[in-house]
């Protein structure tokens, strides 16, 4: 039997020392340099695609620049802003947008929370139901707009056909002042109620069960449990969902473009749709930039007020 090879050397340190030491980090590639190298592509992209356009739009908003007509941009200072804020046309679009945002978000919140509450009480098929309810949210707004346009067509649409089979009269969904705005709200609600439902469901699932058990021991009614446990705990999360939806609804463009083109007349023209017309029909770039900046400011101010309320709610 031959001698077995030693498992260890007498001087293990010598083996290690045979490998050359790792080269020292280049003085030019410090940790900070490395961090800059890794973050700069993203920062440059952000600068080029977000910061620069915003700053440029801000600059143009004080001028009479037109993207197509060219020539030197003359400084008008706050003339564009004054014109927008005092324009009856803008006031009309602001009112339309306000009615739309209030109507759509309220409806979506009530429906979304109700559906989430009902789903949360089920023990079987919750996952499948949630997935099915989420389908509308996954569709493109343009696709949604197009098929709802066909469905709501007064002559050939399936909705009026169904109403007819129930003995009800035809409704001019998209060509009458009141029904056109209601149609927009309904279609937006169909698509975005699942978003509120999803957030509300997350909040409802997170409510600790022992609270309900304790309440049940105290023989609290279902309504009392809902009012004093469920709603206060879900409310802050629901408000965040409402904030997101309100911002989205405020800048609504695609559904209006596809479903009504702002009509009849201009009765469903939202602020975003009006900005589009100012920017691309007349190419009044200066005015459109000021209009866009004002819309951003409105969203920022409302969001700040909202977040403060949310913080106060948390502190309480």
């Amino acid at each position, binding site marked *: 039997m031959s001698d077995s090879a030693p498992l260890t050397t007498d001087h293990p340190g010598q083996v290690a020392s045979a490998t050359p030491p790792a080269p020292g980090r280049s003085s030019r590639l410090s940790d900070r340099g490395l961090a800059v190298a890794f973050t700069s592509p993203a920062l440059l992209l952000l600068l080029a695609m977000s910061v620069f356009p915003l700053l440029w739009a801000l600059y143009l908003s004080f001028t009479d620049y037109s993207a197509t007509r*060219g020539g030197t941009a003359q400084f008008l200072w706050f003339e564009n802003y004054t014109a927008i804020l005092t324009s009856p046309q803008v006031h009309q679009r602001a009112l339309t947008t306000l009615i739309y945002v209030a109507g759509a978000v309220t409806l979506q919140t009530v429906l979304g929370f109700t559906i989430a509450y009902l789903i949360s009480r089920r023990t079987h098929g919750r996952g499948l139901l949630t997935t099915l309810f989420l389908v509308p949210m996954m569709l493109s707004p343009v696709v949604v707009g197009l098929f709802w346009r066909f469905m709501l067509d007064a*002559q050939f649409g399936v909705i009026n056909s169904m109403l007819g089979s129930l003995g009800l009269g035809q409704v001019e969904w*998209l060509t009458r002042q009141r029904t056109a705005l209601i149609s927009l709200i309904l279609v937006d609600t169909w698509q975005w109620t699942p978003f509120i439902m999803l957030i509300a469901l997350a909040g409802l699932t997170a409510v600790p069960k022992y609270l309900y058990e304790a309440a049940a021991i105290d023989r609290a009614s279902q309504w009392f449990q809902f009012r004093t446990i469920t709603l206060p705990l879900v409310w802050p999360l629901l408000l965040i969902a409402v904030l997101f939806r309100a911002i989205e609804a405020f800048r609504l463009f695609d559904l209006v*473009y596809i479903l009504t083109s702002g009509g009849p007349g*201009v009765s469903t023209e939202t602020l975003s749709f009006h900005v589009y017309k100012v920017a691309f029909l007349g*190419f009044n770039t200066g005015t459109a930039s000021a209009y866009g900046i004002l819309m951003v400011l409105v969203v920022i101010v409302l969001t700040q007020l909202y977040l403060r309320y949310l913080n106060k709610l948390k502190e309480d």
Partner: protein
Amino acid sequence: MRYPKRTGRLSVPGRKARLATAAMLAATTLAACGGQDGSAPKAPATIPELTKDPLTLSFIWFDWPPAHALEAFANAEYAKLRPNVTIKVKTVPNANWHDAMFTQFAAHKTDFDIPILDSQHIGEAVTNGNILDITDFVKKNIDVKAYNPYLLAAYGQFPQAETGKRDENASLYGLPLLGDTWTMIYRKDLIGDKPPQTWDEMISVAEKCQADNPGVSGLAFHQANGSDAAAVTYNTVNGVYGGNLWDPKTRKIDGVLNDAAGQEAMDVLVNKMKPLTAKGSGNWFIDEVNAAVAQGKACIAFNWIAASGGLLDPKQSTLGTTREQILDKLGFATLPAQKTNLVPLGGMGMHVSAYSPEANQAEALNFMKWFEQGDIQKKWAAAGGVPSRTDALESPEFLDAAPFNQVYTDSVPRMRDMWNVPEYARLVDIENTNVNAALNGAKAPKAALDDIAKQQQAVLNAGSGKGGGGL
């Protein structure tokens, strides 16, 4: 601590980076804002030497049958002359057509060589320097006497020609590609073979037809507030009842459009014609009107000739299983007259993008010269196009190609266009939205017409030189 908090002045690299960023922003801003002189560059009188390399000549148009017919026709016929050239007609939805072209013009870079502009877009494109001035090219290469002068003017001249005429001293920026006007489509089986001759007669015939045929509406026409739908409808009735859209010499609209004739036209449209249309038709445009005719739901309809081909397709119609059966029921006629016999000018011209590479511009000019020849125009007519040369319009190739082609030939001397001023897009939007509002009960007819006149006048008064305003 490994990363001590920085205090005081920035390090030199940090300051440099910030200075570089600021410089980049400033430079980009200057580059983005400057560099336009606003005058249309001139095309050479003689076509430059053409490339022998493979080349794609791109058009831009909206998506409708003539766009597809043009691509097929040009690739089949032009390739015989220039085998290295491929023709591509890029299409966008009708509602995006203006924006798709002019946003690229604004960027000074186009992915098309030949923009197919509506006749009213010419002013905007010319004043912004987006298309080539082809006056010298036309003088040397095109037989201008072969056309009705107004057709040549409508698709190329700026400043705009007087209705029915052409100013031979004015510059030309385009050549006719596709002629078009409205045709009256009527149900021969419901109202008889003879079409109504006057507008008033047409309304009373439609009224009787609607009463006699439950489920069939008396009229179908464009009412939508997109593109130029409702505006063309009002302008047509305005012309027929002796109204004017504006006074081009004084640039006056307020007081001209809404004069007594204009008010009468609006009254006829809203109070006499609209009640004869189908419920919910307030957003109808080309496709919806065609669908109503094809499904037998309208006694009399108005539509663009170039979009009427599908009506004869048995696969799309409930009026018959063959083309002949459909034609037994459908008739096509020129528009009825009333105080005048004016009809709307439709169709589009070909132009050359000022931002195309030189080789493509040369090829575009060569294509235009080829396309405007008499025999090619007749072939275009046989392929489903509407030519503009008089010899082609009167040729059997055109007149026998479709039952509505005679309507076009007869309508040419009766045509009137809208304004082709740089402010066109805003003018037509004002008119569209207000006429659409009147048709759908959102505004009283008189108020709508007065609003159109007032708002359009404000746009013209503001001029086109500035990018402020526009609300």
